[in-house]
């Protein structure tokens, strides 16, 4: 039995697959690919597949992780090739390797966010005012109802750039099983703040992409 950690991308059409649906999609892909995946034992055996960190709906990524075990002697490289032949073009495995770190080591994730607007300079001014607030409180859904979170304290804004068609942000946000913040929490708060504080600024689509999953020491999760 060979444990495998696959890194895969989720782009274009595939970014609308919810986390639960992704699990089912991958299980079926293993069957189509003829990759002998290990089944759990017990009363109701099922293919063992583990996604250490969920990706929010609509977010692109080139660094998603999925763990499984090969139950047989198929080389992991062949498993990857077989899976890629039966997976949609927007959902492809990029690399396979033996897992090194534990799931609980995940601490942060990096994101690139693009806020479309035809008034990039005005949007930049609004953003600077928004982020200069001492705290940014948002409602966050948790397993036990909703909680108030200061998203400013949680987010490390690594870069802000004004582009011809909007605003580009680079964010580092807490990730993992204990605290997890997705970039939508911050951008939704900004978009909700805008009409009152900068009503003249029109915005379009928000594009988000996860760039990396990181451990507490800042090294990539692998």
């Amino acid at each position: 039995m060979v444990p495998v950690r696959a890194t895969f991308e989720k782009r274009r059409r595939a970014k609308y697959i919810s986390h639960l649906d992704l699990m089912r999609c991958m299980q079926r892909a293993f069957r189509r690919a003829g990759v002998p995946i290990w089944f759990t034992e017990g009363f109701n055996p099922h293919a063992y597949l583990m996604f250490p960190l969920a990706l929010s709906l609509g977010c692109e990524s080139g660094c998603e992780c999925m763990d499984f075990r090969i139950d047989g002697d198929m080389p992991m490289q062949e498993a990857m090739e077989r899976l890629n032949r039966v997976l949609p073009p927007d959902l492809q495995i990029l690399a396979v390797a033996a897992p090194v770190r534990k799931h609980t080591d995940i601490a942060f994730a990096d994101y690139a966010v693009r806020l479309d607007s035809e008034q990039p300079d005005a949007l930049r001014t609004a953003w600077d005012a928004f982020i200069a607030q001492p705290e940014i409180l948002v409602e966050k859904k948790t397993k036990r109802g909703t909680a108030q979170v200061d998203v400013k304290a949680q987010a490390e804004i690594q870069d802000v750039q004004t582009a011809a068609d909007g605003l580009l942000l680079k964010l580092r946000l807490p990730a993992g099983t204990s605290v997890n913040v997705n970039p939508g929490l911050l951008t939704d708060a900004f978009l909700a703040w805008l009409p009152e504080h900068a009503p003249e600024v029109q915005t379009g689509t928000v594009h988000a992409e996860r760039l990396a999953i990181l451990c507490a020491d800042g090294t990539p999760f692998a």
Partner: protein
Amino acid sequence: MNLFEKIEPLLLNVQKPARYIGGEPGSIMKDKSQIKARFAFCFPDRYDVGMSHLGMKVLYAVINQRPEYWCERVFAPDTDFEALMREHHLPLYALESLEPIKDFDFIGFTLQYELCYTNILNMLDLAGVPVWQRDRGESIAPIVCAGGSCACNPEPIADFVDLFFLGEGEEVDLEVMDLYVKMRDAGATRSEFLKAASQIQGVYVPSLYDVSYHEDGTVKAVTPKDGAPATVRKRIIENFDKCPAPESFVVPFSEIVHDRAVTEVLRGCLRGCRFCQAGFLYRPFREKTPETICEQSKKLIDNTGYEELSLCSLSTSDHSRIEEMMDGLLTFTENEHINLSLPSLRVDNFSTGLMNRLRRVRSSGLTFAPEAGTQRMRDVINKNVTEEELMRTCKIAFNAGQTSVKLYFMMGLPTETDDDIRGIIELAQRVVDMFYEMERRPKGKPVQISCSIATFVPKPFTPFEFHPQDTREMIAHKQKILEEAVAGHKRIRASWHFPETSILEAVLAKGDRRLCNVIYGAWKRGCIFDAWSEHFNYPLWLEAFAEQGLNVEFYANRPRPYDEVFPWDHLDYYVDKAFLIRENEKAKQAQTTKHCRLQCAGCGVTKVTGHPCFDYSKPLRDLPEALTS
């Protein structure tokens, strides 16, 4: 023009966006520069319903098997996405290419239930295609076509559709596409093409038929013109075992109603239950061999990756070689962790052998359809199931450890009395009593009998097409009787629905061409998704009827004499009207008719096919026990 850039900004504002963006495994992409004709296969309901439909998967595979044709899928957007589409002027598009369907050659709708008709108008409108056939002009594309079970009486939507496919589509769809390409390339107009298409068996072009009415509103005559045939006969696939079946499905990302591999095991039904439209429409009875079924199932599982396999038919246990079939299927499904599920099992032939095989299959409870509570009533509808058989089957199920049984019934059947209604609960109580009389009954969970009671809808091409539906008041009265009868029975649960949807279903099923204006009026008033109780708005429908000077009672509650011209009489589904009349007369006397394998009932099918449906020289003892009584 690909609409991806226009669709994308809207998707994060709607529920379950994966339904609207395609890209699922198994979806077929083609290079459109190599394509001669494009077919938008539209299911007039939501993605999760439409993606569960086997007929769509079959025709998707059949059309796409031809390299020069490209068939794509289209579903009705839910109301949240529809609002955004209209606000942003996003036309209805197909899920493979993400291109607007108004530029396609064919826009084809599958008609699975009558309450989807307003959705058809809404989808055409969203696509930017005129909803009325007469407004589409002389340019040949797009041809709006429709097929499926409701095409047996297409009159209520006749003015919206260029052509209907009657019967099975695997061959005729391609014949029509071939003709289209030939005529389009020669510069033909829409009406020239429709005239030529009407000569193909199984194609009905309603604009080539004039309908006249008597003063009382009944049909006087349906008159063909421009050389269209006086009667249009449905199509069937003669060699069903060799008929192409899909080797793969589009496997959805989001959850759908029936999310599994499905193999069709037989077509048609030999039982002849008098209320059942499918049992008459899909004749003759034809089955696939166990070898074909196993091979096709295996291929489907391998290509889709599904963890569950289901068998599809009107009555799977009537397959003449069911035990061989089950053994073959269980051999590979058990090895590969595949769940096998078997809907459409009949009460009377649930043999111990079959039960033993089923015990190896995980089951979430058993459902049976005795359809009526008393033997007299079951004889009237020719549901040849006796109480002893039901009891025996339930006992087998209880012995196997089951404690919950679901029973399906109807109310409002011809000749029905209040005692027949009370009989439903009495029958359920006898199942409960039998459970407690069993010495070795399952311990732990108490027995639970759930009775689901639907309002009967008389349908065309059945012996009950002559019958009025119960009025709203009669149904309300019977529901009250049920309520009183079930009170105090702790182990029985009974459920039923408000009758309005069944009334509208009866009207649309047996309606004429004048209903086109009613359907248009209802849609204009905002009616869509009528099959969904949260959307169904009966008062708006009544307004639309009143506006046209029509009423539901004329269509639903009027007994129809044998010599009346019915709106669908010019369509030939192989079954004679004379046979339907004979069956209706027998029903009145509570006389049953034997199933087709025991004795040919002379329904008219053999006059068309030219041969008996079964080899009656084969001794009955070679058949499964279920088919011999």
